């Protein structure tokens, strides 16, 4: 079986996987990182979004072997080592941007990359378009949009640089 070596949330890991294993399966089943969820089988829902070398990716759309040598960040690795939440996590809680919590890890990871990729700032419409790859069935997105808008203010503030 192929061997994959990758860094996940700052820790190096080497695992043997079947060639057909998806990155999300490696994370959930081999590394026990169950914060990354599987919500569909057609790459539509975004519950499985993680960062691969700092960029958001649907981990159900990537073979584990394709992640060989990559640095992966999952929702479990987003908060600081001392447990301090990332501003996006804080704002999701503050603005009631989650209900059942199932889409939340993918939504938060996608939102972090969306904001990081747009240092000029995003309008409400741009946030809505930027979330096109993530489905939420609970919130109607209203509060998710508010949370991301609030988080971008914190993430781009001089103190956060």
């Amino acid at each position: 079986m192929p061997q994959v070596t990758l860094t996940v949330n700052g820790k190096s890991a080497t695992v043997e996987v079947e060639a057909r294993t998806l990155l999300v399966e490696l994370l959930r089943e081999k590394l026990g990182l169950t914060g990354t969820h599987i919500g569909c089988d057609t790459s539509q829902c975004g519950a499985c979004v993680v960062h691969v070398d700092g960029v958001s990716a649907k981990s159900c759309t990537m073979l584990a072997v394709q992640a060989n040598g990559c640095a992966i960040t999952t929702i479990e690795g987003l908060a600081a080592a001392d447990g301090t939440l990332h501003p996006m996590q804080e704002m999701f809680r503050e603005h009631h941007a989650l209900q059942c919590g199932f889409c939340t890890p993918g939504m938060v990871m996608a939102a972090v990359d969306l904001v990081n990729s747009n240092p000029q700032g995003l309008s409400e419409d741009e946030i809505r378009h930027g979330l096109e790859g993530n489905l939420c069935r609970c919130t109607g997105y209203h509060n998710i949009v508010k949370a991301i808008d609030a988080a971008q203010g914190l993430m781009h503030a001089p103190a956060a640089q």
Partner: protein
Amino acid sequence: MNAVFEGIGASPRRKEDLRFISGRGNYTDDMNRPGQTYAIIKRSDRPHAKIIAIDTAAARAAPGVVAVYTSTDLAAIGGLPCGWQIHSKDGSPMAEPKHPILAEGKVRHVGDPIAVVIAETKQQARDAAELLHIDLEDLPSIATVTDAMKPGAPEVHDGIAGNQCYDWHLGDADAVAAAFKSAHKVVTLDLENNRLIPNAMEPRVALGDYDRFSGDYTLYTTSQNPHVIRLLMGAFVLGLPEHRLRVVAPDVGGGFGSKIYHYAEEAIVTWAAGKLARPVKWTADRSESFMSDAHGRDHVSTAQMAVDADGKFLAMKVHTVANMGAYLSTFAPAVPTYLYATLLAGTYTTPVIYVEVKAVFTNTVPVDAYRGAGRPEASFLVERLVDTVALELGMDRVDIRRRNFIPRDAFPYQTPVALQYDSGDYFATLDAAMKSADWAGFPARKAEAKARGKLRGIGISTYLEACGIAPSKLVGQLGARAGLYEVANVRVHPTGSISVFTGTHSHGQGHETTFAQLVADQLGVPLSQVDIVHGDTGKIPFGMGTYGSRSLAVGGSAMVKAMDKIIAKGKKIAAHLLEASANDIEFKNGVFSVAGTDRSKTLGEIALTAYVPHNYPIEEIEPGLDETAFYDPANFTFPGGCHICEVEIDPETGVTTIINFNAVDDVGRVVNPMIVEGQVQGGVAQGIGQALLENAAYDASGQLLSGSFMDYTMPRADDLSNITVGTENTMCTHNPLGSKGCGEVGAIGSPPAVIGAVCDALGIRHMNMPATPQKVWAIINGRPAA
């Protein structure tokens, strides 16, 4: 007492959020048991076929395969039970065909489970399932209620004539006929309520475990009501007594009704775990969810309203055919009857109503309650009919509603369709919503849009619903095979921290916060001192679960009742310690005191005394401070309100854009306004989804066309706008909280407002949902919709 007020009416941030935002939720698929095996279900890809033969030899011989089962292996266990029996007009019970765990002799819908393959890994099970040779002989099939009722239609179940499950009615047919004869005008509207697929973001999962030494079974499952699953599966399917079967529903990623029901996979993994003495886990692929989760809605109706010259409603007549799918799901028969027909008075004084409902079988996935369940079908029908009456009489849509509203002073109000509304003020919600939506400014906005070449429309819905289900005696008379009370156990620990065990289940509703607020409010303790425990039959005395917006109104009331008992016992203990009469003890903000004195004991001191009863009236009261209450509601609750939607249509593309959505609802007492707002927004999003985007599409034979997120249009962030939520509350008069419920109002109130807006923009009488760009474009261009 508390530095920051965290009780009823405050919006503390949710206690459950920390684990969810940090990836530490514990959903069923996150759980694994030592020695676990994996199940893959082989399902029918045909809508209706005879099973000629199943050759399992190659699958059994495949690497890693532990077992392969078909219906012959399950001969000793029962089919899936139905929890509600309806009787037809003639008094005969509904047709109730067996719903086998695995298909017996025939498959009856795409997705019907045929065989289960269990292997050491999921991939091995998947590979082996491909090696099953299943010989099917296609049979004629039907997907729509219209085709199901045609003379000579194929029978979904042999011997069920005309595919009819029941032919039921409610109301006074003669009085309606008489009123129709003498009316100024009778307005008729044909309409359909489109079939939906609930699509909670977490697919269903079931993990069965068995201890061969103790004989104990455990089922971990994505359920809204673990005690109900224990009862249904234990008593009717597997023959397991309650003390040998524990059902755990941990964090559950949304339900919307679809996780109420007892599904075949739960029985399969539990039974197979016993057979194999190993844990068996099944996780649905999303494609499986589309063809095996209960669908929602699917009604075809004709609605008629008799009116006088002033637009006063005189009588209403409704004929509905409801699609049950291929089998009866757990609560399916109740949805188009007692959760639908009883709501047809809406917010209006229509004096006489007659409704006939036929339910039929088709070769489609079973249909059951989905967010709102019967009530969205009722509100869509009533509100669209009211708009149509206004149009045909040349009256204003708002004026005709005001003219027919149940007056503020008419409560309690007895409708002609069995329900008695306890409270409401439909004028208040209407006025507030019109103000919030700037209804008066709409003509100017329409003109401005027209100048840009766009079509603007505004729609209104002044809906009503019934929830907080339900009085056990009443539902028993109506055919329910269960009681619908709720249970709470409030356990004050020796140091004064509190655990509350509730029979309701939270899968997004925020119960861990809302219920803790109730406790903080009533017992005067900080929120952080309260823990809410749900979702485990091994911990919680009993419960009927969460659906029908019942958790706060029924489950919360049980909690209040249990806390009343805690306070009553605490008073006796305090009276002993303070050397006073229990009648003189007051309890406020967590402190028991002797009225008119400064002598007092805190709840924590009383709790410690109760568990360390050295100085204690042990002859009169037992040690401990732990009380359980069962609460059976006296009536349904009746939330209602006004939803206003404004849309803009691009005539070039037929795309409808939601400009804004304003909801003002009456949900009774609000415990956490932030959570209520979120619940309404989420419900509205699903209602907009139904109205504009979503449709469970079948071809004429019953082949599911919308079988993935590629084909079934889920609302995405850029399909929606901001959803403005307000409340104008009147209190429920029959439960101790005054709360009515807020989980479903969004999905019930919004679809008619959206379609009303689309019809207003297009200048048409009515169109059925969903108003897709293709359908809207066809209307604009005078083409028949494909």
